């Protein structure tokens, strides 16, 4: 009787120590769910969800402090993907946060630019090149189309340019293929 009590006590102690060590050694830093959510978000960093960027929105979603339908650039596809990941009911995109726009980038009318640098400060991905009192321009490759620079421009010299498919980026229309 005593023997079994001793054996099991030692076993419990040893296993407890192993588990305790493992908990420290293999501790998961941060919330892995945030990364998974962040991977779905379009990284436009536009702030239309009322959070200052995609990652903060992902953090709020992980905590359950935000709805999944607050991201217009992600579109309905994005909402569906979030609903599946978080095992929530699919919602319609909330129109309060804006509507999904076609892929676009912005460009600066370089003749009008006064070099105020306000757009440089507004850009969440540092896609502007310029400095005080010199002409500013956009690196189109880096622009996410968040449009945050448009309202801050005092001379309204920032315009939207839609990204049209080229020979290299063209995708045929699935509905256009004859089907039975």
């Amino acid at each position: 009787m005593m023997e079994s009590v001793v054996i099991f006590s030692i076993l419990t102690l040893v296993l407890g120590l192993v588990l305790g060590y493992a908990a420290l050694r293999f501790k998961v830093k941060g919330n892995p769910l945030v990364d998974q959510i962040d991977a779905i978000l379009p990284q436009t960093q536009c702030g239309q969800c009322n959070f200052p960027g995609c990652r903060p929105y992902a953090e709020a979603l992980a905590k359950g402090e935000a709805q999944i339908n607050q991201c217009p650039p992600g579109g309905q596809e994005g909402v569906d993907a979030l609903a599946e990941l978080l095992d929530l009911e699919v919602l319609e995109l909330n129109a309060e946060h804006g509507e999904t726009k076609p892929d676009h980038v912005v460009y600066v009318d370089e003749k009008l630019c006064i070099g105020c640098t306000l757009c440089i400060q507004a850009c969440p991905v540092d896609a502007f090149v310029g400095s005080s009192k010199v002409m500013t321009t956009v690196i189109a490759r880096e622009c996410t189309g968040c449009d945050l620079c448009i309202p801050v421009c005092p001379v309204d010299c920032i315009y939207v340019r839609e990204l049209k498919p080229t020979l290299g980026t063209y995708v045929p229309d699935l509905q256009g293929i004859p089907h039975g």
Partner: protein
Amino acid sequence: MAKFIFKGGVHIPNPYPVEKPEIKQVPPPKQAVLLLQQRVGGEAKPCVEIGEHVLTGQIIAQTTGNFPTNVHASISGIISAIEKRPIPHPSGINAMCIVIDSDGKDEWVKIEKCDKEFLNCSAQEIVQKIREAGIVGMGGAGFPTHAKIDNAQGAHTLIINATECEPGIMCDDSLIQEYPREIIRGIEVLMHACGAKKVIVAIEDDKQEAFNSLLMYSFNDRISVEQIPTKYTSGAEKLLIKALLGIEIPSGAYASDHGILCQNVGTVKAIYDAVIDNRPLISRVVTVTGSGVRKPRNYEARLGTSFASVVECSEPNENQHQIRMGGMMMGVDIPNAQYSICKITNCIFVNNEEPKPVVKECIRCSSCVSVCPANLLPQQLYWHAKSENIEKALEYNLMDCIECGCCNYVCPSNIPLSEYFSFAKALDRKLKREEQKTDQSRERFEFREYRLERNKKERAEMMAAKKKALKEKMAKDKDKDQSQKDKIAAAMARVKKTKEDNA
């Protein structure tokens, strides 16, 4: 006869056979529309201006990177436009073209004859000449030839593809019958350029005349001319290698990785013209065939000639026509004949307009599996492509699909399977591009956050340091003040003492 053969493929006899494939010369056009972008690589940059007079063979747009190829004026005349024009592409997207209005003289630019025999030129010099002549794969793929030769330097075997890529096309056949001497010479140039010790010219066994004429001129014992069974898709590079050498190039690898260089026979003729005759690529052989023309024939036409003027030579009937660029299997349907011949236009199909076959549901008969030359499961791929499940399609080796269209041909439900596969491939490329862009934006956003944080910290540190320095200075000043005050007090005491003494 080839020792090996590959699985799949279909045998389709030429639907519009001719007695003897000849090449008819088409006179230089009144207007030439020259495309600046080839199938592979970016756009060549125009180096002429509107209104400028150019001579035939003059470079009008130049290469920028490794892949774009030079574009030469195919007629002499005045540049009348540099603008976007419709091009024969399934997307219907317009692309940059240079338009030349002919002066009717067809005056050539001065050609500097190379005084050196090509055997005395280095491989690099020959590749450079090919590059300058603007040669791309003439079989239809349009890959820049100079880049392909460069990649295959030190190849042991050179394969010349004279199999005719699709049923109905006769341009390789006619080219061989017309220019056998030039082709053998071109092969020798190519051997010298890539260093291959052995050459196999592959011709399908239904082209006996072409086979005979090549044999007649082939005195080089390193060049062997072989016949392979007539079967569609034997013109595909990897399958041709399998049929001739029994070597299977694995998925994702290239022929050049295995020391093999494949070139189309049309490309070889262009190389002959460029290296021996110093003439750039300004014309090509085009087959015009189909149910809508009375005389299916081959034409040598200047690049930029409109389809309509070439089709006219083949005596089209009065019916409504469906025009198709390329072969009956892999070609592109285009709305009308107002397009121009580009470097990859090997064939123009002119068919009487017929109602499109009714597409029905897949019945899983798996006929497509037995004909797929790439050993894929097209019916599985079809489901995944249709439901946009790209990940699954990739698992079923979507990327190995050569879009040959054998599956479309045998499908009893008339499903255009290969169109689904090209859609899936394009979608995969799009998703990959988007993923790259999101990763880049995420990285830049995070770096900006880090930068702002760092600036804030640096500023705070700087302020703290300044404050500290100021405090120290004030403390020091305080000490200084004290000694000053002491001095003043001492001086005042001294004055007081003097006054008292005087009194």
